[in-house]
């Protein structure tokens, strides 16, 4: 049985971070009912011209497995129906700007009235409270606010903007918090309102740097550098734009690398013999590694480095990831067949469970409102006539 079998999520989330949270829950077996409306489709179900393309962006991945219902939350009957859905759910997740759910009549208190032990999960840019809780934000802004963007980048260059990995990090944190809240509910019988702040996720990812800064230690951008490890960087291979990441973490690995390079004398060279010396002399060491690495293909280099006990990996593009036998063996990459028969590669579960090896995704992208007969009919007990009347009145729209 899937780990989260029997859990039901009323999913009001939009964009990337919130939907990724409920996507994580659905991959482990929760039944996720995505609430949408034709009035204002999820921006990621629509075309996304900011990327210079007309098709949808991440919608397929994060909406896989989910069940879609149309619901107009600006209609009083739509709000009433939303509460009925929450009443039969364990979790209600949303990612509107702080205050929007309250204005819709779907605050935590409203939802608790529908289901006293509901776990409500709110994902927002800056949290539900505080002077900047109303700020609009997307992934690059979360990274900017939280310090992650400032600390990423070349030492002689500008900050670096975070992209979807930032959104999805927020979603992963939200999924974790949801499970903790559910375990608490099981123990105490109480639900709660989980408040996930995206900018706090960004700062938590550099939490150690913030600890150091609070003690007066200067922390700044350092490119691909490390405070201790050397050699540590991206090196060229024989093929263009095929980069090799090497991170030597101790003297034994360094000796193994020098041997592999057939320059064993480097290991005893006083400029490189100790970690401190290698770090101080990385400006002369890195070209030696690059001169060696550019003689071979990346695949040959990684195989020989890993065999010699040295942490190394190629800088992988999506094309490498989707075809990797290891990731496919683990179910971390799988193929999804859409309703129309087209197959695409998708991301599967983030972990394997001895008690259950169900694939993380068993259904493709839902059509808008495709699960209304099940949700409104079977779950909520509405008759066909009731549903037709709500559709005619545009409460279901």
């Amino acid at each position, binding site marked *: 049985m899937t*780990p*989260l079998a029997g859990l039901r999520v009323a999913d009001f989330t939009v964009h990337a971070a919130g939907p990724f949270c409920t996507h*994580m829950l659905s991959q482990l077996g929760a039944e996720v009912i995505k609430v949408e409306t034709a009035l204002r489709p999820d*921006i990621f179900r629509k075309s996304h*011209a*900011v*990327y*210079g393309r007309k098709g949808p962006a*991440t919608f*397929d991945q994060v909406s896989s497995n989910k069940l879609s219902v149309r619901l107009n939350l600006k209609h009083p009957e739509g709000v009433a129906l939303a509460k009925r859905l929450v009443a039969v759910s364990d979790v209600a997740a949303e990612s509107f700007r702080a205050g929007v759910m309250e204005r819709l009549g779907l605050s935590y208190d409203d939802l608790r009235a529908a289901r006293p032990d509901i776990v409500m999960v709110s994902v927002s840019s800056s949290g539900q*409270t*505080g*002077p*900047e809780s109303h*700020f609009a934000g997307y992934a690059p*802004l979360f990274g*900017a606010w939280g*310090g*992650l*963007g400032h*600390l*990423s*980048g070349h030492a002689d*260059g*500008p900050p*670096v*903007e975070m992209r979807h*990995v930032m959104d999805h990090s927020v979603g992963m944190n939200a999924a974790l*918090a949801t*499970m*903790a809240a*559910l375990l608490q509910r099981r123990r105490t019988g109480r639900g709660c309102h*989980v*408040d996930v702040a995206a900018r*706090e996720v960004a700062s938590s990812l*550099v939490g150690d*740097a*913030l*600890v150091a800064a*609070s*003690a*007066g230690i200067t922390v700044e951008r350092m490119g691909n550098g*490390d*405070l201790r490890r050397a050699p540590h960087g991206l090196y*060229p291979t024989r093929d263009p734009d095929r*980069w090799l990441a090497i991170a030597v973490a101790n003297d034994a690995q360094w000796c193994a690398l020098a041997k592999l390079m057939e320059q064993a004398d480097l290991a005893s060279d006083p400029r490189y013999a100790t970690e401190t010396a290698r770090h101080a002399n990385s400006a002369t060491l890195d070209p030696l590694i690059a001169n060696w690495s550019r003689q071979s293909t990346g695949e040959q280099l990684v195989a020989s480095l*890993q065999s010699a006990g040295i942490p190394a*990996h190629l800088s992988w593009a*999506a*094309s490498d*990831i989707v075809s990797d*036998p290891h*990731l496919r*063996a683990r179910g971390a990459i799988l193929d999804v067949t859409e309703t129309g028969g087209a197959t695409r590669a998708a*991301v599967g579960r*983030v*972990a*394997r469970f*001895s008690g*259950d090896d169900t694939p993380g995704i068993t259904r493709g992208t839902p059509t808008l409102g495709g699960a209304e007969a099940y949700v409104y009919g079977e779950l909520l007990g509405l008759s066909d006539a009731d549903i037709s009347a709500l559709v005619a009145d545009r409460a279901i729209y």
Partner: protein
Amino acid sequence: MTAPKPLAGIRVVERATSVAAAQAGRLMCLMGAEVIMAEPPGGSPLRQEPPLLPGGDSALFTFLATGKRSVTCDLDQPDDRAAFDTLLASADLLIDDTALADRAGAGLDQARISQTHPHIVHLSVLPFGAYGPKADWLGEELTLVHAGGEGFLLPNGLSADLFPDRPPLKIAGHFAQMQGGVAAAFAGLSALWAGGGQYVDASVQDANVAVGAFAIQRFGDGSVEHRLTRSFRFGGVIECSDGYVELLTLEERQWQGLVKLLEADDWAADPELADAVGRSARGDEINRRIRDWALHRKVADLVAAAQELGVPMARYNDAAQVLSGAQETARGIFRDVAASGGTVKVQSLPFRFDPDALPVDCPAPAPGADQSLLEEPQRRASA
């Protein structure tokens, strides 16, 4: 009296030498689980990772171990192994990142743990997981961020424009390992929810592939993303006279706000810029003007004016600005924690279960500070 935390009553034993495994334990600890680090004699190597605080403690270890308990044990010694087993018998979850090849020798292999402690959720956290042809591969932060796909795509935007010939770039700190830790903790709690003991195999690479799902989806759509071409057509990192801001307009009303912000009446009147596709096509031109305009303005003035007009813009905060931020201060996310050399600020979790942030109030323990737990592993009265 402080309300019980969500994971009160759950006991976790953690054997961690990696950031990922220690992060999984940290998350559970701050949510109220009793997390006992079972360290090798001399302590976890994470205690030595720089930067070091003025008193010699590792800032990284301080962040990861705040609130945890510590015992030291040498699993090669029969007496220590027996005491460790007794401790495990009292626990709900074991986090372990011992390399696969070393597990059987330490009595930490899947078969032995499931046989000796059938009740326990055994959470393995490894760079490439415990199953599959690369299960024995070594991973460090730099190699893992590239194994997950995001490394290849960085930097983008301004940094890529300035340094197009440089190799790809990692994200600051321990981003990849932190993802591994969050995903592992999520999987571990999901297994606790399912009930009964089982083996959970978490992989830092899997977690990073997951958060990089966008690139996988785009590949399925027929395009391979690249750092030099995936920049936003306009906006992104913008240099001001005293720092940098991030600007991103996705919605129509936000574009209109941007036009007002720049007083760009010609853009408002230009039919080619009436929709997002037209604006994308002329992104370079738009961005040149935004960059020229912003270069002579101050960050604070720009952000205030932008937010007033509903234009999403944020200052690139440095560490000190994050620590003293108005929003962060109002939400009380940084707490004073004792460390060698003085008090430091440690962030609470980025989510909360009631109006207050979860407290962070105990220092990281010295190695073996709770050694008595090995002799008498009674549970803590409350979490």
